[in-house]
């Protein structure tokens, strides 16, 4: 899309958003920012930074600022399917903005089974009311895989025993934008691992509307909250990769910004957990790190307010933001090619390469595989930017 066209589109989008009924009457973001002692100049600087992060020309900066000022009009409906609530827990960890200010000051969380007070009939009413009142205007976030087809009744919710699939379809049909939060909703997740006993499906398979995938098990709070801003800006899909993941979060390979990358390049590997290499921070590739195959911003943003991330804690990445990682990335503590015996995973993906030797592999095979993966993403990702 040409920039001029995009600019026009975003302007129209913001104009229409400005006409939404304001949910929180007496406090706009502008006021909040002033209350917190942030000057207009600082705010515009922040907007310029965000614009750059999204790879847009600087002419978009005023639009970015305008977008942030409109966040307080956003109704959000969050549904729980076949899931573990880890994604909701991750949302609770947010500190920028904090979860309380997110709920009280920014978004309007209309339905979220873990946090909402109402139960039973009252809860059902809240969901129906939100879908009706904000038809076509709310953001839908779905956590969990969806038992579908002949197994759809493996999940029912509400006094009318409505299946999870029916809830998801209905809520998706009336949403303005749809986010699949976590790897379960994005790709089916752990319950969809072989042999997928409940026929769990990703959200994108049960609705024909476009779904933005925010995978991770769970995704960091930054990747969840960051997408709200994305929606306000574009009102349509952000730039996505081949798996419909927002590029701003999933555009970089873990391996490329890994703090142990120098060790990898130097051929210094942990051979076994707890060895001398482990104490010195050697590369975790040989104990199974899937960083070379995984696209996410963990090595940059880390988790829990930048406290740590798996590689820092001495454990390899398990590839949790990649499709079907439960089957494709296992065993988690072996390099992909090192499968010693026949398991549900089948043969290793780069088994031959691994036999040639780790030195050669590090120099070539991983590089080739990575480049191939990047090329694939680049090749097919552009369609979603239209």
């Amino acid at each position: 899309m040409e920039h001029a066209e995009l600019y026009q589109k975003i302007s129209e989008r913001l104009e229409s958003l400005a006409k939404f009924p304001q949910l929180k009457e007496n406090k706009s973001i502008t006021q909040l920012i002033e209350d917190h002692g942030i000057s207009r100049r600082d705010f515009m600087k922040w907007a310029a930074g965000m614009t750059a992060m999204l790879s847009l020309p600087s002419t978009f900066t005023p639009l970015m600022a305008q977008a942030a000022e409109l966040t307080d009009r956003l109704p959000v409906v969050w549904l729980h399917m076949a899931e573990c609530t880890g994604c909701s827990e991750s949302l609770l960890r947010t500190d920028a903005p904090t979860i309380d200010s997110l709920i009280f000051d920014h978004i309007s969380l209309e339905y979220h089974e873990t946090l909402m007070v109402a139960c039973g009939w009252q809860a059902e009413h809240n969901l129906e009311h939100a879908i009706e009142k904000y038809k076509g205007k709310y953001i839908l976030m779905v956590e969990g895989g969806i038992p579908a087809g002949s197994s759809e009744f493996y999940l029912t919710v509400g006094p009318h025993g409505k299946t999870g699939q029916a809830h998801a379809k209905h809520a998706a049909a009336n949403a303005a934008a749809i986010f699949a939060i976590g790897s379960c909703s994005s790709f089916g997740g752990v319950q969809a691992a072989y042999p997928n006993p409940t026929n769990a499906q990703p959200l994108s398979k049960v609705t024909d509307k476009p779904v933005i995938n925010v995978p991770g098990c769970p995704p960091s709070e930054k990747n969840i909250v960051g997408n709200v801003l994305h929606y306000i800006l574009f009102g349509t899909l952000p730039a996505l990769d081949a798996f419909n993941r927002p590029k701003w979060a999933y555009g970089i390979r873990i391996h490329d910004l890994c703090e142990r990358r120098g060790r990898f390049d130097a051929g210094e590997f942990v051979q076994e957990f707890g060895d001398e290499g482990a104490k010195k921070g050697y590369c975790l590739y040989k104990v199974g790190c899937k960083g070379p195959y995984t696209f996410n911003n963990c090595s940059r943003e880390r988790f829990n307010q930048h406290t740590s991330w798996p590689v820092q804690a001495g454990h390899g990445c398990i590839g949790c933001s990649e499709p079907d990682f439960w089957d494709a990335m296992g065993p988690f503590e072996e390099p992909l090619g090192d499968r010693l015996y026949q398991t549900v995973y089948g043969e290793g993906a780069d088994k031959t390469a691994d036999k040639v030797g780790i030195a050669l592999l590090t120099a070539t095979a991983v590089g080739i595989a990575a480049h191939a993966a990047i090329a694939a993403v680049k090749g097919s990702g552009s369609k979603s930017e239209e």
Partner: protein
Amino acid sequence: MSKRIVVDPITRIEGHLRVEVIVDDNNKVTEAYSSSTLWRGIETILKGRDPRDAGFFTQRICGVCTYSHYKAGIQAVENALGIKPPLNARLTRTLMNAALFLHDHPVHFYHLHGLDWVDVVSALSADPAKASKEAFKYTDNPIATGEDELKNVQRRVAEFVKKGHLGPFANAYWGHPTYKLTPEQNLIAVSHYLKALEMQRTAAQMMAIFGSKQPHPQSLTVGGVTCIMDLQSPARLGEYLTKFQEMADFVNRAYYADVVMAGLAYAGEPSVNAGLGTANLWTYKEFEVGNDSFLFDSGVMFAEDVINLVTGKPYKVHDLDESKITEEATHSWYQDDEALHPYDGKTNPKYTGFKEEQTVNGKGEMAPTKVIHEDGKYSWVKSPRYDGKPLQVGPLANIVVNYAKGNQKVQKVVNEFLAKTGLPITAVASTLGRTACRMLETKIIADNALEAFNNLVQNLKVDDSTYTSYKIDKNKVYKGRYIGNVPRGVLSHWVVIKNGVIENYQAVVPTTWNASPKDANGVRGPYEESLIGLPIADLSQPLEIVRVIHSFDPCLACAVHVMDTKGNELSSYKVDPNGASC
């Protein structure tokens, strides 16, 4: 005439839970049914996988007790392979476990269970100055209850309510007659609700220091822990210590004080000072704070032992005989009904759906509803039994059994709490007691878990091992299990390893025990039993039911699991099409 009430979804829990009750003309519960409405089948998925991966899969059973199933999966495999990780690794796991409990219990009390006790709207009419003074009644050193702070909280809530757009607080049971706190007490609790949202981030960071992230930490491996570099960094140890102390401080100055406040206010409320339910209690040793020294001990007490304990008569605490654990599916959506030990269990889904019936809806009118088949199958949770009896697990069981066994640390805090509230020991055997015991368990951890930290630091001076090396022999069959006490009660994972891969995997989890449906003899599970006799003030607003159920801290994703030792073809599952609900 009797009436039926359906509460679905029970919100503010993990997972999908439906509760149905039958009430008599006096609005008293005469029968209850607990039904899980989601099945995921994770244990089937584990079959044929690398045993070292078990913990990563089982961790995804639940993102709330995120660490429990990870640790259980890793330790079940270690038990099977005969591995004892080095002391450093075991103590690090204890520190991560402390981080879990210090996160999970306060979040349950404030954000999941709290609004069953606290009327947010009532806080608007509080006098902040009076409330600030009131806070000193429950602790000498309150937190987040200064007059200025309370005024700000009140203003914030007022602005929120004024907008008429309540979001997650909309359409709740505000003003319900069983809310017993004064406006000032409500304001204190609302301030702590917000403070706890802030503190839970700190507790999660505690976990992440050694665990890489929370939810779903990633630093345990079969044989030990991987976070050796964090353990070797004094700065990192200091971070943990500081955050631990912040959390312990919050537990003592807010959580403890608020439960004392609720205990006093709710002592006379009939819907919470009964409801012990199943009186057979089971707990298991947990929290290794020094080499083979644990904070909590194991034991089983049957109803008569519990009655004897609270009435001052001689009682017994029994050792558990693992061979007496069975599960059955008479009322669960699986084909095979007979009671079998976990190793022999079968699980083929047999979903029979709901039936149509008139029940009391949210407006108090009779309305068409899908209800369970009470005489048939009605839940994805099975019925675990011990020697044929249901067992209640959780903080109440842990505190009562350890009290009965003479655990000094437990006796001290229980006696202090009873003295402070003036409640008799029988008060423990109730809904209020379950909620109080969860807090007491947290306090004992907050006051004592640093023993593990100190022992770890001592040990690190002379020993830097964090991992025990092992080999898996493909020609051997290994069997092993983990049993331990996690935030919601006793958790056990059972694994069989053959040809180097997982042959069979089973998890019998706390909520399976507590949320179980009736067994073949018609004996109710703990949730069901605890609701019998419960008075309900307003059938259209069954807050009392929600409060009782929340006091168990349900975690349904954990409870629903599958056992399949026979390798049954999944494609052969037959589903009764007429049973489908829609």
